[in-house]
């Protein structure tokens, strides 16, 4: 079982994940329409790229935008969540050992204590996000079961990984559950709201091009995100 989920199933999950993400990006770009969107994407490409980079970059930094600064607590939680979500799985020692075994290469790794802090950060942040969804009326009205499901898909690998490593007596069982959860997440990314893994960059780039080309970017000094 362990061999299967960390072998063929892992291959399949990664294939779906990578191909799915690429397809999402291609579909997004192909569906842009300079006249309907009213943005001269290609004619003023250099202004567009400048706007796109600004639009992405400011949002990638905590407190980089007005919206982040207006919501400091949320911003901290948001970044703890997303940084942990991205950094932990990629640079975890255990993952890189498997990577070396299976594909013959590995990446730079983070100390296990750091990984633990990041993972716990993700879990605590997720609890905060759930409570926020319930507590704030402006978030509650938007929230659907699907939002909780997506959050669960994203956090499950962390919870199960943490249990396997630190809590469970039955390591073998929990590690298999953990791997399956990770694979569910990988597969879910292209097909659910988790597609914002790539579409965040597409959508931000699009609005950045809009502001960079049409809404003042060619006259002003760039939008003050």
């Amino acid at each position, binding site marked *: 079982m362990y061999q299967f989920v960390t072998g063929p199933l892992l291959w399949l999950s990664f294939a779906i994940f990578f191909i799915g993400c690429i397809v999402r990006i291609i579909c997004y770009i192909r569906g842009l329409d300079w006249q309907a969107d009213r943005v001269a994407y290609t004619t003023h490409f250099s202004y567009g790229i400048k706007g796109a980079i600004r639009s992405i970059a400011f949002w990638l930094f905590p407190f980089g935008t007005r919206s982040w600064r207006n919501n400091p607590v949320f911003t901290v939680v948001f970044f703890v969540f997303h940084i942990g979500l991205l950094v932990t799985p990629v640079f975890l020692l255990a993952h890189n050992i498997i990577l070396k075994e299976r594909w013959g290469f590995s990446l730079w790794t983070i100390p296990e204590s750091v990984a633990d802090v990041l993972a716990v950060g993700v879990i605590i942040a997720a609890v905060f996000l759930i409570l926020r969804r319930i507590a704030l009326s402006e978030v509650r009205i938007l929230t659907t079961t699907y939002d909780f499901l997506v959050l669960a898909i994203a956090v499950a690998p962390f919870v199960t990984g943490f249990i396997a490593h630190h809590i469970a007596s039955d390591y073998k069982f929990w590690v298999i559950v953990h791997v399956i959860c990770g694979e569910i997440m990988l597969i879910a990314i292209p097909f659910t709201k988790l597609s914002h893994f790539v*579409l965040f960059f597409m959508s931000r780039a699009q609005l950045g091009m809009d502001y960079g080309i049409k809404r003042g970017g060619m006259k002003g000094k760039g939008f003050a995100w």
Partner: protein
Amino acid sequence: MPEGILCNKKTIDTKEQLDAILADASGNQYYEEMNHLDIDKVALWTTIRKTFKSRFKTWLEICAHCGLCAESCYYYLANNRDPKQVPSYKIKTTLGELIRRKGDVSNAFMQMCMDTAFAKCSCCTRCGVYCPFGIDMGIMFSYLRGLLFSQGFTPWEMKIGSGMHRIYRAQMDVTTEDWVETCEWMEEEWEDDYPGLKIPIDKENADIMYTLNAREPKHYPQDIAEAAVLFHLAGENWTAPSEGWEATSLTMFAGDWPACKMQVENVYAAMKRLKPKRVVGTECGHAYRATVIEGPYWAGIKTGQPPVENLHYVEWVAEVLRTGKLKIDPAKKIKEPVTFQDSCNYVRNAGLADIPREIMSYIAEDFREMKPNREHNFCCGGGGGLNGIGRYREERNIGFKVKRDQILATGAKLVVSPCHNCWDAIRDMEEIYHMGIKWTFLKPLLIDMVEVPEHLKPKEE
């Protein structure tokens, strides 16, 4: 009754149609007929399939329901943080639902969409600035307005506005003759005070072609005279076209896409005919947005640029004050605290935030910024056509509270507002909330403040 006599899917293209709908006071019959209007679901879904592309699709799909857009919306703030005013909720329950049901919706649903798209969103696009994904719900509501218009669900005044543009190529029934006569009249009225004052019509190859808002010839002809005086004092070689002078577009607010194109092409034709070096548009936010920012796309111009370089009035004012073509009498600078209303249409949506600050530095001694300001400023509360729609008066007046408090917090007694919509909104705000403020365009302020060169002064008898 599938189609009403006044409320229907047909556009208004003749004077008879226009007179009929105008005769229906306050749109009583119009809205009654709307209750029975059928929806052409096939046509609606076909339009959606052709126009609902990756940008909108992605926006609706990836919205994380985080609620960060809530506080960006002045309706949310003005309505005691009513969750039903959260932008994401508003678009999800209207456009989102319309897409989910593949256009299979009821009359009541369409009316709810109309009420939301006009009375809960002025398309100020501020929410898009606060969304981590850059989901611009103002743009989506503009799109929704277009879908609604195609099915006959648009406020009475918007239907009239669209008809006006289709018939007169102006938002009001101002004919070419009316317009030219108004110019002649203003020239005569004002030339005693400003000898040599001319409003040159249809002069080719001028340095500046002036475009404006139909309400100026219709209701505020002195605004045209003031523009002429300032061009005259600045020594500009300018002209105004007899056709294609109207730069606004109620069709943009209404969502009458084909008429957006007709309207803007009329202005572009004037630019091509008269070949001015530059075009200067009046103190109007949406005229600039329609003609300069969105217009090229409606007209299918791939560069996204109008045929000739266009300036908003504030850009021209900043330029002539900067270069000294117009000089302010230092003694006449504004002494009292004064603030500036950033128009969404040419500040957030066209990048002109620095220009008004430059102007204020020349003309005001105690300039006070609203908070927030520049690209982050709140809509006046009357944008997106809302000022003109009787059905949503109450919603608009509640929405005013945010701008009211912003203005009051500055302590300023005067609001400079180079945008017709903002100007109207602030006037109505004062009427309703008695804030004890004054409001003004730039033109009358400047007329009182500029030094008139000796050779342009009236000769003493």
